[in-house]
């Protein structure tokens, strides 16, 4: 599951619901610094500082917005991680 952008208070319940609906094995990749730590919106009353406050995250891709190459690199790492976990 690829999560981008900050997790707002309103959207948290839906994120959790979708996470549970996913068939096993589940992997989450947080794309963008907003998803990693809430980036410029830190301190706002309506967002959580990062996706890992809500669901476990496997791979983080930094950048705001991250470059396409960075995302592809993130995906490759995820695939390696899946391979090693298998």
């Amino acid at each position, binding site marked *: 599951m690829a999560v981008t952008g900050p997790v707002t208070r309103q959207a948290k319940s839906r994120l959790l619901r979708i996470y549970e609906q996913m068939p096993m094995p589940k992997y989450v990749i947080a794309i963008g610094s907003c998803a990693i730590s809430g980036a410029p919106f830190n*301190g706002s*009353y309506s967002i959580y500082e990062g996706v890992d406050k809500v669901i476990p995250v496997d791979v983080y891709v930094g950048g705001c917005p991250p470059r396409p190459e960075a995302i592809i690199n993130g995906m490759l790492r995820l695939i390696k991680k899946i391979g090693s976990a298998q």
Partner: protein
Amino acid sequence: MKASNLIESQLKDEAREITVPRERRMFIRIAKENLRKSMKKLIGLEGLTHLSTITGVDVGSQVELIYHIVYEDILVSLKVQVSKEKPILPTIVDLIPGALLYEREIHDLFGVRFKGNPDLSRLILPDTWPDGVFPLRKEWTPERISEKIEDNHENY
């Protein structure tokens, strides 16, 4: 400057004070009572009037609402003040249907109630948001807000 003179002539009796910071801009302060009257006049002018948005500003004990209206090429801002204790204003949704969402947003963030607005339900803030907390008011500092929210719905 035909358009601006036209507006001035129309609103001169209601307007308490008119300032023109630069061409194509105009700020007019009006009393709460004749908000609807001046709005009707503005819409009455032939040509194209379009409500861009309503801005809320917390000025100490009062909440100031600014109605930004574009007429021809001039951006007119009608400023109305309403007290924080009794924040009630007549709605303008019947005059300008487009104002519905703006009024709901102001109601969410500033707590100003618009008499006559058909539906003032939550627009921006989540459903679990505690009533009475109006984030954009100065007295609600970010710390107070987050602490009020934490104890409100920890069950989430």
